[in-house]
């Protein structure tokens, strides 16, 4: 029982497998990019065009193909591309080399598939070669109808020409041109290059103009900006310099503050040092005062005092000696004077007596002379009243005395001279002492005694003068007997004698 089930099961499985394999062997499916071309027993389509050909075209679905009775071939409907390279001439006769690409496919309708299948089914790979050859010729004719400008610019014209020239032949082949593109045009004559040159030059000129203008504007803007910048820099630098100056000033002040305070401090130190030096100087001075000057002063004072004392003593001694000498001289003078006075008195008394006698005798003569001289006196009086008056006032007594002396001279000359000498004694002594007056320092070797001797000598000298005077007087007495005229000349002579003695 189980074996039967196993067998049945196995048979069923095998049958299923066989069925699957059979179906797999019979059933063919057309993929979206291909068409199945089925030919053989009973293969025909409803299409009346394909009818006569006796094959069936299946697209987009599956179909059963009886093995041995039918064959199924696949025609690819993919898009294909082939490159073209053509040396040709344009409408204007310009030789160009054109490289292009053509994209084509088998048409999707059954007519196109049938046409293509009949031509290319076994040689699908050679389709590119055929299309290449075909389109090389067509492209040459197409370009021959176009100008270079059209080639470059007029795309519609190109496609239109392509259709016009290739439509029928492509339809024969069952192919559809999707696109024809000119990839590259090589121009040996430089036509295309020259074609662009005016535009290029124009654009270049415009570019240069624009560039120049923009450059000018930019330069102007730059210069303006630079000027503003320089101005700003200048302002900034001025301000910076100002600030820097302030900073420097402050720094200099700060730098000077140290030395300044140092100098101030040093100044105070110097002041204190000066003070100290002054104090030291004062100390030294005081020390000198006390140690040197005071003793020196004391010594000087001692010396001065001693010298003064000595001098005073010497002066006192000299004074005492001078006084002594003077007194002695005075005493002698007094003595001489008294003696002379006594003589004079005696002489006067005798003279008076004689005068009375003479007066009495010569009164008449006198009266006569008086009468005679009265007129003269009057004249003289009128001529020199003031002089006579002065002379009279001054020398009235003198005249009197002289008159008396002149009278006495006749009697006793000696007495008169003695008297005159006695009267002039002080002057004589003075004149004698004048000899010593010119002497600055007189060293007297024998002290007061020496001086006395000297005076005595001087007086002796005066005495000699006295003798001379006496002789002169003696010589002059007879010549001057008159009262008025003779006496005055005698006096200067006596005086001269005294002066000459001094």
């Amino acid at each position, binding site marked *: 029982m189980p074996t039967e089930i196993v067998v049945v099961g196995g048979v069923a499985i095998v049958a299923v497998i066989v069925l699957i394999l059979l179906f797999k062997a019979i059933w063919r499916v057309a993929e979206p990019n291909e068409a199945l071309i089925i030919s053989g027993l009973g293969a025909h389509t409803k299409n009346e065009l394909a009818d006569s050909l006796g094959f069936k075209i299946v697209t987009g679905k599956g179909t059963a193909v009886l093995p041995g009775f039918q064959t199924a071939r696949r025609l690819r409907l993919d898009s294909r591309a082939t490159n073209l390279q053509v040396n040709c001439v344009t409408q204007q006769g310009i030789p160009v080399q054109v490289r292009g690409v053509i994209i084509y496919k088998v048409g999707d309708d059954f007519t196109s598939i049938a046409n293509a299948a009949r031509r290319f089914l076994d040689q699908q790979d050679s389709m590119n070669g055929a299309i290449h050859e075909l389109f090389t010729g067509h492209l040459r004719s197409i370009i021959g109808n176009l100008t270079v400008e059209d080639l470059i610019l007029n795309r519609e014209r190109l496609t239109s020409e392509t*259709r016009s020239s290739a439509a029928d032949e492509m*339809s024969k082949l069952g192919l559809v041109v999707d696109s024809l593109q000119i990839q590259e045009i090589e121009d040996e004559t430089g036509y295309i290059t020259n074609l662009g040159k005016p535009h290029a030059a124009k654009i270049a000129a415009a570019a240069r103009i624009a560039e120049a203008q923009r450059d000018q504007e930019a330069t102007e803007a730059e210069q303006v900006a630079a000027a503003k910048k320089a101005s700003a820099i200048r302002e900034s630098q001025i301000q910076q310099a100002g600030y820097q100056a302030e900073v420097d000033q402050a720094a200099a002040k700060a730098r000077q503050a140290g030395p300044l305070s140092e100098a101030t401090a040093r100044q105070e130190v110097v002041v204190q040092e000066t003070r100290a030096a002054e104090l030291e100087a004062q100390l030294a001075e005081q020390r000198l005062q006390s140690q040197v000057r005071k003793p020196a002063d004391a010594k000087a004072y001692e010396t001065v005092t001693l010298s003064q004392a000595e001098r005073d003593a010497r002066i006192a001694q000299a004074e005492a000696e001078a006084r002594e000498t003077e007194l002695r001289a005075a005493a002698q003078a007094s003595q001489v004077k008294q003696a002379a006075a006594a003589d004079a008195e005696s002489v006067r008394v005798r003279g008076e007596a004689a005068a009375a006698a003479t007066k009495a005798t010569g009164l008449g003569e006198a009266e006569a002379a008086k009468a005679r001289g009265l007129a003269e006196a009057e004249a003289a009086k009128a001529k020199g009243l003031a002089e006579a008056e002065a002379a009279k006032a001054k020398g009235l007594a003198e005249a009197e005395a002289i008159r008396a002396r002149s009278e006495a001279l006749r009697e006793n000359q000696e007495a008169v001279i003695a008297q005159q000498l006695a009267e002039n004694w002080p002057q004589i002594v003075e004149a004698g002492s004048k000899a010593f007056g010119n002497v600055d320092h007189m060293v007297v070797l024998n002290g007061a005694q020496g001086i006395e001797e000297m005076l005595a000598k001087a007086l002796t000298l005066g005495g000699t003068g006295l003798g001379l005077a006496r002789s002169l007087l003696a010589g002059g007495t007879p010549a001057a007997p008159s009262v008025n005229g003779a006496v005055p000349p005698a006096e200067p002579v006596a005086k001269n004698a005294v002066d000459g003695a001094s």
Partner: protein
Amino acid sequence: MTRVVGRQGRVTGRIGPGLVGEVMVPIRGGVEAFYAYPSIPDEEILVGSIVVVVEYSPPRTVYVARAVV
């Protein structure tokens, strides 16, 4: 069997006398290009116009007329 005649299409290549025009016609789930000629002689149809396929000439040629829109 799908048919082209009666369908509307768009002109992609100028149709006129002496020219081979092109129209794009939606068919078989896609859009196919057909060579187009004017159904009325000497008529010119510019690119972009809507046309109606009047006649179909296998494999890829149609005659078109302006569609009355």
